[in-house]
């Protein structure tokens, strides 16, 4: 190549490079884009009233604050007269509970019993029978195949769950976790598999179970008694 031709070739090459760069600019357009997504589902439990409370065998007293289905449980019950003037076998209160969860759950309970009396004849926690009744899983969206374990002995008024102590003459709830002394600290009463399938919260179905309390009228020391019960549901 002579010295005149070389610059021309160099310019041509430069032009080529510029065109290639121009073409590369065209390639800078993109024909794809991405949308990445994530979502979190945490364990969820819900505890509410399962409906109206049933009080029976009472003499006086009544339901001061009733349970309202699907609302937080904050009930108050006056059991009335528990001395021998009440001739019924038992004063019982059945409190419907409703549980909902997307994970295995544990229902725990703690209870305190305080009486104004000063002797051993006052009402104490062993005098308050307790048990959870039949567990019901039904309705659209409910995990009906899930199993539950009731740690209590059920209806405390059942003959098999209590009897008169032959030595003292006092009526006692003798079955496993059949009186409130078993729940002086938070103790598991019920546990089981997840309750609801993938349904929205607007679906009001769930697991229902009655919490049953019973006191047998006896010659207790006169006075007043307060029973306070707290339920807690967790998904460990």
């Amino acid at each position: 190549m002579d010295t005149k031709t070389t610059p021309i070739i160099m310019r041509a090459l430069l032009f080529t490079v510029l065109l290639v760069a121009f073409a590369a600019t065209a390639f800078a357009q993109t024909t794809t884009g991405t949308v990445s997504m994530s979502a979190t589902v945490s364990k969820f439990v819900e505890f509410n009233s399962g409906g109206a409370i049933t009080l029976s065998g009472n003499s006086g007293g009544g339901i001061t604050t009733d349970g309202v289905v699907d609302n937080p449980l904050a009930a108050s019950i006056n059991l009335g007269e528990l001395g021998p003037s009440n001739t019924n076998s038992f004063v019982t209160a059945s409190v419907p509970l409703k549980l909902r969860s997307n994970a295995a759950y544990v229902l725990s309970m703690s209870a305190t019993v305080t009486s104004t009396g000063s002797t051993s004849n006052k009402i104490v926690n062993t005098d308050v029978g307790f048990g959870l009744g039949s567990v019901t899983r039904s309705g659209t969206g409910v995990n009906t195949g899930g199993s539950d374990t009731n740690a209590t002995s059920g209806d405390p008024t059942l003959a098999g769950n209590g009897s008169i102590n032959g030595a003292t003459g006092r009526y006692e709830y003798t079955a496993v976790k059949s009186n409130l002394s078993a729940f002086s600290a938070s103790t598991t009463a019920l546990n089981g598999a997840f309750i609801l399938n993938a349904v929205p919260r607007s679906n009001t179905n769930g697991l229902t179970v009655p919490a049953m309390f019973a006191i047998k009228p006896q010659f207790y020391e006169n006075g007043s008694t307060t029973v306070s019960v707290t339920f807690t549901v967790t998904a460990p």
Partner: protein
Amino acid sequence: MNLRFVISASCLCLLIACAATTISAQALDISSGGQPTITGTLGGSVTGSASVLNNLVVTINFGEVSPANTNAIVKVVVPIGIRSNQPYQVSVSLAGLGNANPQALQASDIGFGATNIRAMGNQSQVCTLSSHIFYPPFNNDPASTVTIAANGRVTYQSSLSNIAGATVILSGPRLKKTNGQNRGTNDGYIFDAIFAITPQFFAAGVSSATLTFTISAGPNVPC
């Protein structure tokens, strides 16, 4: 000899110029269509560029979708910019979200639709002989098509479960007036990709998925 070399170099340049022209003639582009938005979330977020000049790279965190989120629905709107100088189609493909537990979040639990195509500006091509068509079942806002199935679970007119391979969701005539390769702020169209999740009693866990939107040559329709 030298003259021949110069002519050869010139021909090469011409060929490259033609190639560049060809590239220009086949311009297809997908980009951000603006700032994505999220509503109804508990602890979630969405990130993406507000500029239509930037690539489409969006990250959605729906946040908590158990009943702990008491909102009726978590909704995300992702504007997507598209440009072409020829008939086009937009397809979408899905990766991830393979939960074995049927009670966990599934593809059918994430509503997905595409709506609301609009011109970017005065360099957008307005065609009178063909329309931009959103393909059923995706032609909806999933937040507005929520129904409850017999088993109590929420369903949508369309969801991520309707995506099988590369599924076309939109097609139409050319989108821009010019053949220029550079993105402008006024030379294409924008449509909304909408995602929705109704908080439910899903099995606990974290789920993730990636959608890829692709623009390619579409059905040969007149402008």
